[in-house]
């Protein structure tokens, strides 16, 4: 029997990995991937609490988070495509400096 706190700590570790990725990477695409990592970790937390509480509400919420994540990726990638068209780079610092 795996205690719920193990799942929660694992989700926290994955969330923090995503946050570190956003902070230290400069490639906009990899930053977006790190945001996806954070969203997936949050989903794991929602589902864990759904099981702890014995209700399915958390799982429904996780599905809705997934739909929002899909929309977010589509819009984010479109923004990156137009950035590359205008600035010809995906490097955060170069985009910021010009």
């Amino acid at each position, binding site marked *: *029997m795996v205690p719920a706190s193990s799942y929660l700590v694992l989700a926290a*570790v994955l969330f*923090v990995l995503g946050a570190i990725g956003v902070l230290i990477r400069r490639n906009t695409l990899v930053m977006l991937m790190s945001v996806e990592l954070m969203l997936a970790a949050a989903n794991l937390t929602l589902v864990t609490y759904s099981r702890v509480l014995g209700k399915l509400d958390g799982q429904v919420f996780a599905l809705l988070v997934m739909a929002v994540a899909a929309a*977010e990726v589509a819009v984010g990638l479109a923004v990156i495509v137009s950035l590359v068209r205008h600035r010809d780079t995906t490097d955060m610092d170069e985009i910021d400096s010009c």
Partner: protein
Amino acid sequence: MEMVVFYALAFLAVASGVGVIAQRSATRSALFLLANLCCLAGLLILLNAQFVALSQVIVYAGAIVVLFLFIVLLLGIERVEEGPGTRKAQGAAGVLLGVLLLVGIIWALLSSPGASAPALVRTDNVREFGELLLTDFAIPFELAAVVLLVAIIGVVALAKKRLEG
């Protein structure tokens, strides 16, 4: 048995998560993200959330990662990352802030009540899930469709080439 599967999947998930943020090549990052999401889907099955696990594989692995790979290859920007050692201070500060965040989250988790052993109830997950989605959560469910529609329209507006004149 459950313990072994959990720790194997947890180790793989953390390792591939590190891979996502440590790889210089964006393509490899995307593939590590795929591995990470598949591990998370396995953990969701351990938590008796089969429907969410399958949607995770279909939506994340099937759609989102493919979209990432498509854009990486379309733009031809696989290796635009910095040379080694240019941003040591920024990296150290990022990792430090991340560790602080982790300590904060775990402290909050351990001091919150009710996060102990979960009661495993074997139920008909997909049936109950569908019923809940179409009764109590019908309005959020429909709103998710609106969000996706708006996202599609926004993407087309953003990504289309400007018409001349």
